């Protein structure tokens, strides 16, 4: 359930970052900063998708989690400096969600 919520947050993040970059009148339309935020949001979404769909070793799982958290939190910071408050909040929540996912014990059945 938490993983599903995180996926929704990541999707929202991609949508908000895409809107900031593409839509007129956001104050950051077409800027490198907004593009960077979009890339960060997509990276976090990709990380979560990999976690959900791909069997991983512990080591790889930890690596993907760490990269996803990093992408989410850096995008949250970028969102704050881009004055895209909704993006910053969504990506910060996403980062926290991924941290919680990382802290939960693994069900060791998928990988042999």
């Amino acid at each position: 359930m938490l993983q599903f919520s995180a996926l929704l947050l990541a999707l929202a993040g991609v949508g908000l970052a895409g809107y900031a970059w593409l839509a007129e009148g956001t104050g950051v339309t077409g800027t490198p900063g907004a593009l960077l935020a979009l890339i960060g949001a997509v990276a976090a979404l990709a990380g979560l998708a990999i976690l959900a769909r791909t069997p991983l070793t512990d080591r790889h799982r930890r690596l993907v989690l760490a990269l996803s958290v990093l992408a989410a939190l850096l995008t949250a910071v970028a969102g704050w400096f881009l004055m895209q408050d909704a993006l910053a909040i969504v990506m910060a929540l996403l980062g926290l969600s991924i941290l919680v996912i990382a802290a939960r014990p693994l069900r060791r059945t998928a990988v042999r």
Partner: protein
Amino acid sequence: MTRHLSLLSTALLCPGPAQAEQARWDTFNGTLSASKFADVSSFTPDTVPRLERAWEVRTGDVSDGSGELPETVWSATPIYANGTLYLGTPFYRILALDPATGAERWSYDSQSTLETLTQPALKNRGVAYWESGATGPCEKRVYLGTMDAALHAVDADTGTPCAEFGENGVLNVNQWNETNAVFPFSLLQPPTIVGDTILIGWSGMDWEYTVEPPGNLMAVDARTGNLLWDTGFIPAELIPRTGTANIWSSMSADPDLGLVYVPVSSPSPNYWGGNRLEGIPLATSTTAVDIATGEVVWSFQHIRHDIWDYDTPSAPTLVDIRRDGGTVPALVQTTKQGLIFVLDRRTGEPLFPIEERPVPPSDAEGERAAETQPFAAVPPPTVPVEEMPDVWGLSDTLSLGECSKDRETHRYEGLFTPPSVEGTFLWPGTAGANNWGGAAVDPRSGILYVNSSRVVQVLRLIPREDYEREVHDATNGSIEGGNEAGFHAQEGSPYGIELYEWTNSLGLPCWEPPFGTFSAYDLASGERLYEVPFGLTQRWGFYGMRGWGSPTLGGPVVTAGGVVFIGASMDSRVRALDAATGQEVWSDIVAAPSVSIPAVFTHEGVDYVVFTAGGNSILKPQVADQVVAYRLGSP
């Protein structure tokens, strides 16, 4: 305590709601007094959060310079007159819009060449309006100047050229460019019109040549374009050796006194004055000229022997100030160097003490800097001129001490440190602490409002024998690209120059924030009431911290309801500030920095504030062609 009393007096003087109205906003500065005061009381700090877009128009006249056309720079004040909103564009067209809807009533294309003949970009600061008082064709006119020195006159109702003006509605102002004519008289600033007299200044390129057209003010008949008089600002014996000291900015006028107040710029070349050591008393001055005769009535020189390009950038603001139980007709001149001069506009006499202070000598070949310069301590300068800002720790750390090293390398001995071969810190920078936006004043309270920039530049004289090689090296062989890289030839002088902002290798400013402020002054006492960081910097989309402020271009308008409207900031926002505190009470994002003065007026009983968002590469590389009108929404 005084501050609170002053602010209280502002509040008490604000009339009740929905009483006042601004029937016209028909010059670059709103009115001939350049007070930028709008007698509109519906816009208050409490109501402006309800501002909503009434309409938005894109003119289509914009270029970022990436295609065949040069970049555009657009700083037009929308003119409200004759129940219509008039705009000039950087493609030298006039648009007449319905103020309520933005619908186009007519447009006029001057067919002017779209070449950057004297400027790095296609520029326009708007149009001028005149009416005779009679009815009939061309009894109301709109005038548009062009880069190639043509002044167009069209009928304000139809956009049809007024045939009796010049030749079929076009006056060739360059016919009077007879001396040292190395460039045309570019008419980028709309002329000032007093009665039936059109007062015309021009723009040039005083960073390129030593000998250039001598600065002058021309008066022509509003009906015919016939020259009435032509007043020069450079002594005849110096004209073969120098030039400019022109009027590129707006003017103000007091029709009752019969005087026009002109901001005279610096002579050529900008940064070396060995060709004009005798001094040019009218250069870098505020000068009062008799509108009827062209005679110079008085002149106040802000800078002796200007070698910093601190030319007088804006129309002086006219206001009557309280003094010894009465009022004095005064004039307030904000300057690029950040000093505020308050003068009696009848005589030019200072109304606050002005001190002549010794300033550093020059070590450049053939140069002799003035020994003293005038300093006004009251009102306090708009930026701290006693000492340049400290090195910014953040920027210095990130660049591993690059900024600190620069600070020790380049020359700085206070305001008016002369240009040098080793590089001189130019503080404030040549875009000025204050520029063409000037100041606004509430005539009821005598409180002055002004936005200011804090930018440090490095100016380096390059000996002539090294100049071409240095430009070649810096631009990978493109001498033509030198201007964009900050090089200027100053042909005919022993030095070319390089001018750039003092940044580290990462592009961060090396000087401490704030980078821009907004201030209010009580002109009766000369006291500064407040000074707050204003605007936001922006780079790659990322915004700076609020406390850093932003460099600004463009000016404020103050309203009777106690609100200041201003664009000007780097972050492409237009804002309303509470005039009593300088705090932001409303903002909106527009398409590019609004580097102009907004128009505030009442049309068919509804109050509007209209901004043009055109951008200017001095702030950031973002241009647009947007006109946005706001009015109050429902409570």
